[in-house]
């Protein structure tokens, strides 16, 4: 019902006419069924079912798993990003993030390069059980560890520990394949030469491209070794790269490397905004961290009650996410390092330990949400999934 007064507003008739014309010649939304999903899936499919094409040995305990798409299409990514691999091992459904080690310009496949972790659930499964031809369900590319031209310098100083070289391998190959105007100094820390992942390829690339500098740093070098020995220290970095200004620093490796290298960078005068850190998973011996209550031992078990869904016992030294998965409860996860918030669950009662600096939204913290991939039970808990 149109009010009388409205009909007498100036230009009312014109507007009504316009309305009629637009209705006649306008958009037919019924034709757009599924369009949003179609566009978004090209970038962020909810999951990918990839086929393992090849298993390529790299070092004694590391292999590259080459994954191809069944329909030939793989979403784009930025060198340095990871995919999360979902698996079921020994009846446990879980996932692990692996950096893509192939470059983004290689659109035919995704490579992940996996190192065997002693007693590791997923790495051993991937290296030993998965066979060429098998399907693997993964996430799309994720993560924020990549070169960002908006504020990163064209000279990149990359510090890699062990398998942490995988994202840099992707970046370096892209730079040389595509002739990008960037300079890379890669320091690769490794216990011995045999374990230095991609050593031969990196040596070859560095020999051919003057903008790529490869510096293996061998912790226990053999007698007579000519290269760098020991750890990646600030002094060593400075000797090789000179001035710190005009350079952005990237670090990826085991936790011990961050503990060691970050103070060195700070000491060199590198400002925080020039240091990019890849996530490195949950802390290895969390009970040794500052703030962990003395009275709680890692093997202490607590009862976790899931609202509307049973209860189980969980050790303090294991992440809540892992315990949930071991008890058959599936919580979405990507980074498993506390960063992406996928695994957030609400604590209704009880206390958990979360490492300092875990990026939890302030209002999430206020309402009791925790990132379960880096939360450890310190008491009996009640949670809401």
């Amino acid at each position, binding site marked *: 019902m149109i009010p009388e*007064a409205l009909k007498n507003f100036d230009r009312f008739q014109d507007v009504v006419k316009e309305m009629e014309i637009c209705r006649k010649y306008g958009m037919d939304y019924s034709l757009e069924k599924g369009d949003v999903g179609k566009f978004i899936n090209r970038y962020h499919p909810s999951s990918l079912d990839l086929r393992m094409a090849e298993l390529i040995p790299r070092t004694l305990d590391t292999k590259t798993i080459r994954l191809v798409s069944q329909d030939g299409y793989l979403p784009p990514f930025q060198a340095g990003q990871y995919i999360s691999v979902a698996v079921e091992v020994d009846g446990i459904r879980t996932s692990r993030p692996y950096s893509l080690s192939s470059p983004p310009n290689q659109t035919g496949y995704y490579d992940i390069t996996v190192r065997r972790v002693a007693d590791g659930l997923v790495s051993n499964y991937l290296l030993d059980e998965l066979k060429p031809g098998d399907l693997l369900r993964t996430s799309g590319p994720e993560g924020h560890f990549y070169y960002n031209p908006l504020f990163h310098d064209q000279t990149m100083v990359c510090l890699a520990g062990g398998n942490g070289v995988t994202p840099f391998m992707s970046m370096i190959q892209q730079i040389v394949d595509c002739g990008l105007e960037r300079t890379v100094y890669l320091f690769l820390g490794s216990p011995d030469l045999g374990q230095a992942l991609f050593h031969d390829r990196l040596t070859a690339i560095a020999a051919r491209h003057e903008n790529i500098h490869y510096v293996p740093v061998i912790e226990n070098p053999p007698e007579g070794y000519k290269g760098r020995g020991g750890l990646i220290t600030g002094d060593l970095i400075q000797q090789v790269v000179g001035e710190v200004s005009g350079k952005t620093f990237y670090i990826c490796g085991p936790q011990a490397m961050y503990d060691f290298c970050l103070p060195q960078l700070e000491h060199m005068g590198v400002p925080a905004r020039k240091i990019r850190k890849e996530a490195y998973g949950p802390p290895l011996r969390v009970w040794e961290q500052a703030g962990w209550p003395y009275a709680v031992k890692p093997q202490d078990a607590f009862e976790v009650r899931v609202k509307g869904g049973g209860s189980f016992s969980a050790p303090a030294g294991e992440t809540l996410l892992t315990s949930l998965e071991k008890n058959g409860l599936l919580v979405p996860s990507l980074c498993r390092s506390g960063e992406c918030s996928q695994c957030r669950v609400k604590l209704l009662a009880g206390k958990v330990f979360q490492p300092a600096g875990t990026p939890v939204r302030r209002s999430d913290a206020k309402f009791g949400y925790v990132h379960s991939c880096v939360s450890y039970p310190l008491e009996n808990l009640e949670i809401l999934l």
Partner: protein
Amino acid sequence: MHDYDAIVVGAGNGGLAAGAALAQSGLKVLMLERHNIPGGSATTFCRGRFEFEVALHQLSDMGTPERPGTLRTLLDSLGVLDEVSFVSMEDLYRVVIPDRLDVTLPVDRQGVVDTLQERFPAEKEAIKKFFDLVYGYGLELYSFYRNPGGEVERFPLLKRYAFRTAGEVMDEFFQDPLLKAVPGAYWGYIGLTPNRLPFSYLSLLYVSYIEMLPCHVRGGSQSLSNAMFNRFLSLGGEAKFNCGAKKIVVRDGVATGVLTDRGEEISARFIVSNASKVATFTDLIDPGEVPKAIFEGMKGRTPSPSSFNIYMGLDCEPGEVGITASTTTILPDEDMSDRHFNQMRRLDTENSVMGFSCYDVADPTFSPPGTCQVALLTLRYAEPWLRVPPSQYAAEKYRCAEAMLRQMERVCPGVRDHIEEIEVATPLTFMRYLNSPYGAIYGFEQYMKDSLFFEASRQMPIKGLYLAGGWVTDCGFAPTIKSGVSAAGAILRQAG
């Protein structure tokens, strides 16, 4: 016999408000959300030591505890007011045309007039008259809303100005194009350039933001979403995240439940869809069950622009890089013609109208000590982004962001040297997170023919189905929250 009394599809503002209101009245409610967190647009995300606000630049209709606005009253009635705190901003907005204009309007009618009169002394009288009209018109609008009956003589200002554009009205009052640029800068809040923007919206923006104060939520809009969701839970509401509705089941003209993307079918007497109106009827309901009138009604309407956003964490205080107001609009020039309208249809961001918010100006606790964050945006239609080959997407994103940062540097010298974190969102990002057609952030466009005088009837031709959110009302936090409460009200009346 139903699993639930009501199912709410989508946990944006509209869905959250509807869910909380329904649960508050004792209904058994299930909420489904595709993402892992409630809020829709009203959300935040973390990078490094920053927590970035996604959407909210200025919250409208809050008022003060003494003079509450509609939003405050609604939040109070939903029982969430005590869980959230609000910060009011000292400035309405700042407008800059590099080297030519730099005006900051205070949140005060007389102050706005004084500021403009001082900058444009030649048009002193016109400025006063213009704001008299803005207010007089706004008042008539409110009384029309309350009671549109009677003769047209009750509404002399509406009669003359209801179907004029903001541009036409400014042309009637002002000479200096720079002066026109100041009210004109408000267009970004609706997404139509002044030569297309109904004057009604300009009037409403001024009156409501000045009288009810532009606000921000402490801790970001996620605080508000979490508070509404928490209220919903504590009232017994149930929710599934990472669980989208794949289908709203309609049988013989009656909505009877929802099929989730996990394959469960859940029944309910009432369904509230907070998904866009387009998605609700094209994607979620079987074509055979959608009355023709729905598509015919939508046919005349066009999706609003999406947005190209840059979220930045800076390792300095706002003042160090020349950020002096909470909200700033940068205009490349005083041109109010179709040029900027056309620009929204392009990929390039060179010489675009853009706005940015820095919440730390009003609330220094918003970001960690010694830092601040900036949300910089320019409105963009999604169309050209849909044509970018995926392999070029990142490069285009950086190229467009680069052009915006260069432009921002003219107003905020040195800002680029302080970037510690940055994230860029394109129309595709909004499509992904809101599931909205063309990534539209303001629902349907609000041309004269769509303006508030012609609000579509809320009557749904499908029994049991109700819509809430930015596609059935005006855009913005206050209207969408209100739409959720209204949908709940309609359901409760039906439920008896």
